[in-house]
């Protein structure tokens, strides 16, 4: 089952929510705000711990504000004892995670399949 907002495509795979971005560039403040709201809803909507897998396969560009959003999301997920995994991050975007050392904070996989297999 897939739910689509203008910014996100969310596919439910059992208890797991697979999130894909509609935008190739996660930069614009308003876009980010919409994405953040949708993701926070996903975390808040269930009583059970949230299980999110976010694929960056569509994303070519990312601003530091998007990193901030992911950090906040990670905190919320942890508070509910859930899990958050990231996958398919293109090399130039992964570099952004490396520079900011957020590659150590997040659970990052090369592919969606690898991320799912880790569950």
């Amino acid at each position, binding site marked *: 089952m897939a739910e689509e907002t203008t910014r996100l495509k969310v596919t439910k795979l059992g208890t797991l929510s697979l999130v894909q971005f509609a935008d190739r560039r996660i930069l614009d403040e308003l876009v980010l705000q919409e994405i953040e709201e949708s993701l926070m809803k996903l975390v808040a909507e269930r009583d059970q711990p949230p299980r999110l897998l976010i694929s960056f396969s569509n994303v070519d560009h990312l601003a530091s504000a998007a990193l901030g959003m992911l950090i906040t999301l990670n905190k919320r997920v942890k508070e509910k004892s859930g899990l958050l995994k990231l996958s398919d991050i293109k090399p*130039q975007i992964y570099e*952004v995670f490396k520079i900011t*050392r957020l590659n150590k904070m997040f659970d990052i996989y090369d592919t969606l399949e690898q991320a799912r297999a880790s569950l």
Partner: protein
Amino acid sequence: MSDAPRRTADEPMKEIVVRNNLAAAKLPEEKILADVTAAGYGEEDIFAIKLSLEEAMTNAVRHGNRNDPTKHIVVRYSVTPQRTVICVRDEGLGFHPELVPDCTLPEYIERPCGRGIMLMRAYMTEVEYNENGNEVRMVKVNQR
């Protein structure tokens, strides 16, 4: 002038003044990237300039001019096949970049902000602020 940058670029610079909002901030980005592409920079350099310019413009709109729509941002730039120099100035009170916490430190890693300057420093060849802290000057040397 006290708010002048510490060092000026050697090349003649073009100037664009935009209103203080993120939509208007796209205009200098489009113009600079068009010049950079025409000057034959590689994909990695273009990515670096684009990312750094976006971070600088966002900082100017949000932190410098505090989202005040009556304020403006002045962008001066020069693009040669050798290097690109970009200066972004806001009308704010400025800040001390050395006081921004290092978000790679374990005690600050969970802070959701403060990474823009870090990325600019990582991607550009030089990044410096004027004394007031309301203008950033960034240089990218063409790696090709």
